[in-house]
């Protein structure tokens, strides 16, 4: 036996079953790629293939979730769990069972739930993409497989137990998104936005690589669990470690568009085709939040004092700047870009409280944020198709008279983003607030409250323009029933979750305790 054979003998075959959702996405991406190259009359085919791929992947994700849940509720295993202690049981099950690809890929409930929401958000985007692109005469089949590649990148990201996997997933996602932003080729703005994001995102990538290099230099490891173990035995105030950690946080903040790393956001959001903006604002964002949480909790729990302060500062800056600048925007799309910066602030504020409650609040807020963000931006995408609609705030005037259903839907999203009960946005803010005061971070909690009052200034402007004014422009709207329905579903989810957030809240709390219990696994 040669040395190489000795080296690889223990390595085994990866468990491909838990990778089925990702494999489906990959295959669909290539199928769409070839249809786009060689097919004829291919537009419906491309859409439906993509939808089928995403749905199939969604179904298999659910199957795996059920598998894991069964494992927990199975009496025999439970009995075993009681003998050996519940937490170690969860650790052993999740890690021995679902750590695959030689320890470079972990599939657990945490990543699976986020995958579900990424896929659902993407499905909504795909649903509205074609009519938008066709009405703007900027239809390209490339949209679809690039979105699929980006989704694959996100799935890899949230499943990463390792800085390498995380980095590679992030890059796959980012590069696909750079291109997607530039896809509105009739509009120079779009290309320019792509270019800007490419440059600034490249800076972010550089920052993250440098951070990974520093962290690797300090610990000699890539895997989160190994970094944690090294940290436990070494000097936790070492400059190398802190420098690496802070750079990593800054790089992640850039991807999550937190102030002061937010500068690409308004231009990229405004320049991109609107469905792509929705894609960036919802699935891409929550994948980023998930990975932020995962890295912070799984790799660096021993230096939580540093990173919670860092995220608190980033959150405070994002809230203040995002809301203040959003106030003076006249273009609703750009206003939503700034509002997404503010929302990043609200969400990462939860990291200022490094407790189970804080993590649960982050998970809860990111999950519900999908519905609001997709909803509000898909609304713009639907209306942008009509002649004369420019997303200007005055275009919303009198909408309630012309199209009461859509006005109601938009009203629900605006109220939710503002955080007024009975919409779910209120619940999100409430949980973040509770987490913050639970950890005695009053200054940030109070700032959050003040900033959400400030945000009323721009969200309510949209609502009052829709409801309290006469139509300013003679634009006729023609929105089909399925489109109305899909938007209605989002709005109703936003309201129902606001009235009954119990289930979502339980899921977030459980995810957060699973996340904590896997520390050191």
């Amino acid at each position, binding site marked *: 036996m040669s040395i190489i054979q000795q080296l690889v003998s223990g390595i085994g075959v990866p468990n491909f079953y838990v990778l089925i959702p990702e494999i489906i996405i990959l295959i669909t991406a290539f199928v769409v790629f070839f249809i786009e190259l060689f097919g004829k009359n291919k537009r419906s085919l491309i859409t439906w293939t993509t939808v089928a791929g995403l749905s199939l992947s969604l179904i298999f994700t659910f199957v795996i979730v059920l598998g894991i849940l069964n494992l927990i509720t199975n009496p025999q295993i439970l009995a075993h769990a009681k003998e050996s202690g519940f937490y170690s049981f969860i650790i052993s099950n999740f890690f021995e069972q679902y750590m695959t690809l030689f320890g470079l890929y972990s599939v657990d409930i945490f990543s699976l739930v986020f995958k579900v929401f990424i896929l659902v958000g993407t499905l909504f985007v795909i649903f509205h993409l074609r009519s938008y692109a066709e009405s703007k005469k900027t239809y390209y089949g490339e949209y679809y497989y690039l979105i699929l590649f980006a989704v694959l990148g996100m799935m890899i990201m949230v499943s990463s137990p390792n800085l390498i996997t995380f980095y590679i997933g992030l890059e796959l996602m980012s590069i696909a998104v750079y291109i997607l932003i530039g896809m509105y080729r009739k509009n120079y703005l779009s290309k320019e936005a792509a270019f800007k994001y490419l440059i600034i995102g490249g800076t972010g990538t550089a920052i993250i690589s440098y951070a990974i290099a520093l962290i690797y230099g300090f610990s000699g490891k890539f895997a989160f669990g190994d970094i944690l173990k090294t940290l436990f035995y070494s000097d936790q105030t070492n400059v190398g470690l802190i420098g690496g950690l*802070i750079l990593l946080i800054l790089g992640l903040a850039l991807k999550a568009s937190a102030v002061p790393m937010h500068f690409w956001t308004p*231009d990229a959001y405004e320049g991109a085709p609107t469905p792509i903006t929705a894609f960036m604002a919802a699935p891409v964002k929550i994948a980023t939040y998930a990975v932020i949480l995962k890295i912070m909790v799984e790799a660096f729990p021993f230096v939580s004092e*540093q990173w919670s302060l860092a995220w608190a500062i980033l959150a405070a800056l994002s809230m203040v700047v995002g809301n203040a*600048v959003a106030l003076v925007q006249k*273009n609703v799309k750009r206003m939503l870009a700034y509002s997404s910066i503010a929302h990043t602030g609200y969400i990462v504020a939860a990291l200022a409280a490094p407790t189970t409650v804080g993590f649960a609040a982050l998970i809860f807020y990111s999950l519900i944020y999908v519905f609001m963000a997709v909803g509000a931006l898909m609304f713009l995408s639907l209306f942008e198709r009509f002649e004369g609609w420019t997303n200007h705030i005055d275009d919303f005037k009198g909408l309630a008279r012309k199209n009461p259903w859509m006005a109601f839907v938009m009203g629900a999203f605006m109220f939710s983003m503002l955080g*007024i*009960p009975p919409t779910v946005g209120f619940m999100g803010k409430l949980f973040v607030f509770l987490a913050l005061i639970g950890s005695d971070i009053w200054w940030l909690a109070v700032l959050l409250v003040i900033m959400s009052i400030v945000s009323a200034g721009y969200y309510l402007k949209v609502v009052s323009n829709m409801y309290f004014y006469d139509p300013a422009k003679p634009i006729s709207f023609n929105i089909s029933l399925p489109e109305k329905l899909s938007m209605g579903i989002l709005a109703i989810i936003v309201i129902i979750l606001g009235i*009954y957030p*119990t289930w979502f809240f339980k899921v977030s709390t459980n995810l957060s305790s699973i996340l904590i219990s896997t520390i050191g696994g």
Partner: protein
Amino acid sequence: MEYLWVIPFSPLIAFIIIGLFGYKLLREPLAGIVAVIGVGIAAIASIIGFIDVATTGNYYDLKLYTWLPLGDYKVSVSLFWDPLSALMTCVVTCVSTFIFIFATGYMKGDPSYPRFFAYLSLFVFMMLMLTLGDNLIQLFFGWEGVGLASYLLIGFWHYKKSAADASFESFIVNRVGDWLFLLGVLLAFVTFGTLDYLDLFNKLPEAGYWTVTAIALLLFGGAVGKSAQIPLHIWLPNAMEGPTPVSALIHAATMVAAGVYMVARVMPVFAASDLALDVVLFVGTISAFLAATMGLVQNDIKRIIAYSTLSQLGYMFAAEGLGLFGEGMFHLASHAVFKALLFLCAGSVLIALHHLLDVQKMGQIGKYMPITTGAFLVGALSLAGIPPFSGFFSKDPIIEGAYEINWVVWVFLWLGAGLTAFYIFRLFFLAFFDGDRLDPHIRKHVHESPPQMTIPLIVLATGAVLLGFFKEFFANFLRPSLDPMSMTFLNEKTKILVEEGLSRSHHVHIHENAWEFLVHSLTSPLGLLTLFTALGGIFVAYIMYQVKIINPAWLTQMFKPIYLTLWNKWFFDLIYYAIFVYGYYKVSRFLWKAGDKIIIDGIVHGSGKTAIFSGNVMKLSQTGRISAYVLQMAIGMLVFLSLFIFLT
């Protein structure tokens, strides 16, 4: 007692039915009828429940479902039925029923008829969630919900710019109060670990004085916003832009009284802190007096009544601050009846006069509308506190109590009573009698309103006459909820604490029996003084506006500074505008300039428009923008790294 669930849910079902089928199937008369039936069922159920509580003296705490687990504490949707909530629920449902019936006539022919009744039903549902909850979270949800319904209804005629502005204003001002309230709720949760009233009350002795004070004051902040007390009162007069039944229901009888109800509901918390009670007393007294002075010079029929609402709510808060919670709640009930009556009369007048609001342009309509005039007179006498109308039995005990507890408060409340009598009769004489100032075109069409509008007036007027005689019944009825020694759900420690807190009112003796009270008032100097003050106010109004011995214009000239101060509502609106609207605008402008504009060299709304309109500007700015972005990011990184490497 399971049937009590019908109370909140029948208006909800009515809301859903009207919301789904309002425009397609039900349309004009039917949508209103569904709403009336919905709220009628709730009224009947609540009266049955009321009788049950009145006869047995029990309380019920029913939980429907667990809504939200917060650590060990589970927030549930629940129904707490004790004398206090029973009284409030009955007031809400019964007054609503009559106002709904009135509204079927008032809104006749409005294109948005079904929408109006959908909103109204939603409002009643939210209001009942507020009154019936057994925890502060549910109270808060109802609180927000009625705010939302009120916002929708103020702006109901959204084609009127003023209506849109008013609803926006009410929304913003209420947010301030709501956030204070929410902070209070959260502080209570952090302190006590529970938000159920009963657990919370029983844990009161464990908490420190200042914590309890902070909780009480924050909660009271919410009440100040919702009940439009000074300094958050500015939204209520402007809220009169909504349809009149809305003003009657939401901005007079029920929603604005929610603050008073909330303070009574969590009475032990307030009683545990004498500072909190003093603040309630102070704000209530000031509001009662200042609002009465503002009402003196208004010319808009609905705004005059709105200022009287502010003032009367001030009386209720003053009563609570004095420790006379039972009297405060009784005044709430009687006020709900006579104020709804006054508003509905105003609505009836407006229908007859085609929505002419200025009282200076009315006059002599009394003879065309006898029922409305009679009903208005009953309401006005009641408001002025003339025996034997209900306002006398509910307001005078507060004034007399104040005399025995704190004479400064008494002076303000007593003066306020005189002013109240004056301005409401000024309105009465100007609108219904006096000279003939009415536009002849309008005069031709003036007529009495249809029966579905006059019958509620008659019923409510009867209520305003009779309710006062049940003074003793209400006092005994409320005792298990508001008298610490009779509150069965409190433990001994809390009882002692609350008893001490309310000790300021222990030496006050007010006759509970209505007859005794009447006799006492007519014989004691204090009672006579109050009574003659009210009569004096009416008399002055009579000689100024009916007999015209004193010319109001001459008076205005004589006391110009005072007149201007009152006319400008003590300059509250102007000051707020200067500080908040203008200041807010300036600050956000500044932030925006500093953050975006200066650095990126005058590119106003991002690259969008400039890029399209001028290639040249773009050329210069675009590369600059990316450099600027990266530069700012680098500065951010620098600061961040230094902060964490060198400072922590």
